[in-house]
Every structure is written in C-alpha cells, then in structure tokens.
C-alpha cells in the first residue's frame, strides 16, 4: 500500500506493484474460466501425444476457417475393440459436453497404411448401446480408398448424436475390394488406429441462436 500515491479512480491508496500483479493474474483466471464457461481449469487425464496433436492441428490449419462465434473440436479416438480382422475397429470418442451449439460439419480422419492392397471399401456405423443382444448400429457413410496416407471422410453431422452424454462410438467395417485376390487373403493391418496416427474427429459447431443465419445475412 503506497503511502503517498492515490488511486485515480477511487481516491483510495494504490496497490504495491506485486500486489497489483497478483490481483491481475487472479482476474485473468476468472475472466478466462468465465469466457469458456468452466468452473475450474480442466485436469487432463489422457493428453494426446504431442506428435498426434501437432499433426492434427497442421491438417486443420490448411484452409480451415474458424466458424464465427462457433467452436472447432478435434477429438482423438480411443480404440475399444480392434477385432481380429484386418481393419475393422470400434472407435470411441469422448466429446465435449454439448452446449447450446449446432453441429454442422463433421469429418473422420483415418490414416491408411502403405500395406493397402488396391481399393479398400470402408463403411462407418454409429454404434448405439446394446439393445437385445447386438449393439444397434446406424450406417453413417461408405467410402472407397485407393491410396495410403491420411483420408478425411465426411460424416453426416445429423447422425452424430452421442448416445451416452459425450460418448460417441463409431464402428469401422472395411474390406479390400476384389481384384487383388492374393493380397486380400493376407490379413494385414490396413488402418493405423493407435499411436501418433490414430484417427480423430474434426467437428465444427455454431451457436444455436434462432435465426442466427438470418441475422448474419441481414
């Protein structure tokens, strides 16, 4: 508390620089948590590998325009059931708690290994909770891939409703198309579903305000 100096706003004594700095840092924390609608800073239990993070961000920066007032989310898959077949897997995503936002863009990024024998046909299902015996599944998209490397597969945003709060399961069913029968018989991993090239979802949302589009056009 500086004896001689006076606060120009309220006329009270000013703060020592260290005290003012500590107050500013506390204010910054409050302001950011409020802005992100969080009650406390997130404790990250499973941070994605740095290499996977860097690669995903680099892919998104190419030509992606941040939605006005909206959000962009990258969600990395955890593999819950890599079945014995060459590339069918169950991918589980823990999505952020949905705020009053409208999902309008969804892409699944997959890395196809160089072992790809010719053309690969891939079907993507949304996997629901078990009803009766088998899990219920909804076909979201079907793609054919002929080259190894990264593929961004567009998904219908309307179909990506998370069953349990925040948990989305996608089932990948794929098979090499005929034509290269010798290769098709040799079961080899075709999709990279772990490590630094694990699949990730790219989602874009915008606020749900009614008529937001009209307001913007006006």
């Amino acid at each position, binding site marked *: 508390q500086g004896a001689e100096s006076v606060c*120009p706003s309220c006329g009270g004594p000013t703060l020592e620089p260290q005290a003012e700095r500590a107050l500013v840092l506390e204010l910054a924390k409050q302001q*950011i948590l409020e802005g*992100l609608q969080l009650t406390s800073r997130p404790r*990250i*239990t499973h941070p994605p590998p740095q290499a996977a993070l860097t690669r995903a961000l680099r892919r998104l920066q190419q030509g992606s325009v941040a939605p006005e007032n909206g*959000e962009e989310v990258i969600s990395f898959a955890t593999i819950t059931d890599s079945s014995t077949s060459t590339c069918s897997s169950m991918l589980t995503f823990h999505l952020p708690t949905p705020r009053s936002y409208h999902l309008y863009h969804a892409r699944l990024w997959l890395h196809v290994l160089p072992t790809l024998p010719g053309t690969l046909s891939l079907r993507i299902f949304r996997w629901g909770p078990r009803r009766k015996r088998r899990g219920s599944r909804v076909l979201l998209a079907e793609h054919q891939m002929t080259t190894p490397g990264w593929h961004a597969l567009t998904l219908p945003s309307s179909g990506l409703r998370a069953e349990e709060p925040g948990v989305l399961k996608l089932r990948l069913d794929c098979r090499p198309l005929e034509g290269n029968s010798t290769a098709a018989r040799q079961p080899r991993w075709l999709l990279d579903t772990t490590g630094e090239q694990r699949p990730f979802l790219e989602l874009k949302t915008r606020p749900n305000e009614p008529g937001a589009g009209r307001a913007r056009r006006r």
Partner: protein
Amino acid sequence: TPTCEPETPLCCRRDHYVDFQDLGWRDWILQPEGYQLNFCSGQCPPHLAGSPGIAASFHSAVFSLLKANNPWPLGTSCCVPTARRPLSLLYLDRDGNVVKTDVPDMVVEACGCS
C-alpha cells in the same frame, strides 16, 4: 484512449499482459501464449462525461466545454470500456479434446466516460 501513465488521473486504459505461463496454464491452453488483460481506470470530471474516450470531434469538444461551465454536474460519470474485441483460444478439455473457440469481449481496446 490514452494508455495510463502513473500520473494520469483522468480516464484511461491500463494495460496488463498476462502470460499463461504465469498462471501455470500452458499445459492446457495451447494458443495463444498470453493475452492483454486491460482495464479502465481514472476520473471522469463532469466535462468528460459521455465523451467517447478517443479523439473527440470539434462538436464533442464544444459540448465538453458547455458541460464544464455548467455549475450543476449531472450525476457522476464512470470510466468504462467503450470498445472490446474477442480472444481466440485453442485449449485441451478434460477428455484431451482440442477445442478452438472465440471468447467474445475479452480484450478492452478503448475506455471512455459513461
């Protein structure tokens, strides 16, 4: 808006740069590395009331003189933000998702007397 100097008693913008390292938050806020936490402080004598706080036009200068010569100040006036801009943040949420969002009205760019 004038940036506050130590001896500036009138309404001005006080600039503070906050590095997320100082908050110990660099592990979950990926971009940017910090941001400007500015706030407004200073007195608003009657003749400054209602002034935009930036380069005032001739009209508002005359208007201020009229107010200054008015012996009955119309209530008190406060030093408040008059222009703010959003802050774009890239951060990790508790499930390890990367979220990019714009937080509206985060950075005070100009102050003025209400």
